[in-house]
């Protein structure tokens, strides 16, 4: 479902003497349907960078980034927009929302975007928010006013509202209490059982071992420093 071949990434800083900073090279990675691959490696090794390359907010310098039958590295904006709507979900570490939109609508939005009717979308959103222990009195409020942990759970609910065939999870269990962590892991396992291909970053080792089928150490993709 997700396959990277010989992907490399560098940043060119035009305003700092056009310095070229290579950050990754020779990335090869494959995730099948129903499989969860955990990204490991020290902080700064490029785990989140790799996710952004797959989601398309970073441009690969070379190589192929296949999600389904689309090469994200070469795709037109509208193809990536369609991919994100119908195929590829992403739970980032930070929730970014329009101020004033109710939490319930934030969570229902991915369903509405694929044409699910209002009532069904809101029912699904409500059940996810309840499962993640967001008190019902907060549902009609904008998550911009929520605590960090609550925002994170809203973000997770939004990521799991629609059943994407492929899913990127950037630290979905960080700073959650045991009960909510267990809920998130149950959601991940449910998605796997439905055949979703998942790439995840989990700092928590127990969580990682519970849901991941294999691991990829991203430090292996660090560019070799010329001796």
């Amino acid at each position, binding site marked *: 479902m997700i396959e990277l071949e010989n992907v490399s990434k560098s940043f060119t*800083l035009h305003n700092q003497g056009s310095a070229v900073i290579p950050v990754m090279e020779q990335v090869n990675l494959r995730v099948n349907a129903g499989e969860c691959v955990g990204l490991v490696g020290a902080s700064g090794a490029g785990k989140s960078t790799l996710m952004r390359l797959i989601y398309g*907010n*970073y441009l690969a310098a070379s190589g192929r980034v296949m999600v389904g039958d689309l090469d994200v590295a070469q795709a037109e904006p*509208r193809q*990536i927009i369609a991919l994100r*709507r119908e195929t590829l979900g992403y739970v980032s570490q930070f929730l*970014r929302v*329009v101020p004033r*939109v109710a939490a319930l609508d934030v969570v229902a939005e991915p369903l*509405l975007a694929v044409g699910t009717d209002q009532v069904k979308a809101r029912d699904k959103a409500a059940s996810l928010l309840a499962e993640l222990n967001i008190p019902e009195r907060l549902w009609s409020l904008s998550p911009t006013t929520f605590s960090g942990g609550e925002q994170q759970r809203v973000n997770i609910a939004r990521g799991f509202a629609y059943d994407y065939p492929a899913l990127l999870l950037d630290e979905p269990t960080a700073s959650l209490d045991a009960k909510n962590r267990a809920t998130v892991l149950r959601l991940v396992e449910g998605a796997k059982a439905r055949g979703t291909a998942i790439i995840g970053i989990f700092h928590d080792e127990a969580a990682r071992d519970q849901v991941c089928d294999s691991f990829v150490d991203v430090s292996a993709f660090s560019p070799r420093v010329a001796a």
Partner: protein
Amino acid sequence: MGAQMKEQDMTPLLQVNGLTKMYGPRIGCKDVNFDLYPGEVMGIVGESGSGKSTLLNAMAGHHAPDRGEVVFDTRTDGPVDTLTMSEPERRMLGRTDWAFVHQHARDGLRMSVSAGGNIGERLMAVGGRHYGEIREQAADWLGRVEISDTRIDDRPSAFSGGMQQRLQIARNLVTGPRLVFMDEPTGGLDVSVQARLLDLLRSLVREMGLSAIIVTHDLAVVRLLADRLMVMKDGYVVESGLTDQVLDDPQHAYTQLLVSSVLQV
């Protein structure tokens, strides 16, 4: 965000080819090319004088460009270059399938006519004749842009800046356009009023399946509203792509400067 639109091989709603506008020897905008598909929202950013408003006005037919084509997929005749249309045809397009939201609401409203009249006028321009129905639709649209229908007979001069802007949007959208041009729609408004307007624009775009081109210098606005982004400098498009890709991984020196100049809050 093309809600229910499927990615069938559809015709672009708008195709801009080689659009160039000169002011004497000075470049307004040069060789601009892009396709806009139904349901897409595109942002155009750049500093003052970068040519973004010149480009918007040239596309919308407010002034004649020197070269290029602005091909619109019309309901009746398919793709037609709007620059070669007759004046009445273009004016009709401006009242039906196209809408233009000005930065200053007073440029897009008739200040001496009531709020209801401002909305009704556009309906009458496309053949609406039944007074009761027009008034009913005007009241409905005031509600959609969150203006109490008790204000229907008030003149826009009695409205706050944010309300005037929402009224301008209602006046523009009442005829169900397919393409909306917006010039700094949130410029000059308080941030709290901006947020409300952004939320409103987003839901209207989704519900009506609109395509829109939004000129702004506010990167936060494009991140929330636009699927795609074009960055302009000195009349040229220096970078374009998916909005979050251009903002998160800018490739051009000028875009990198622009993105890194934003104050974090």
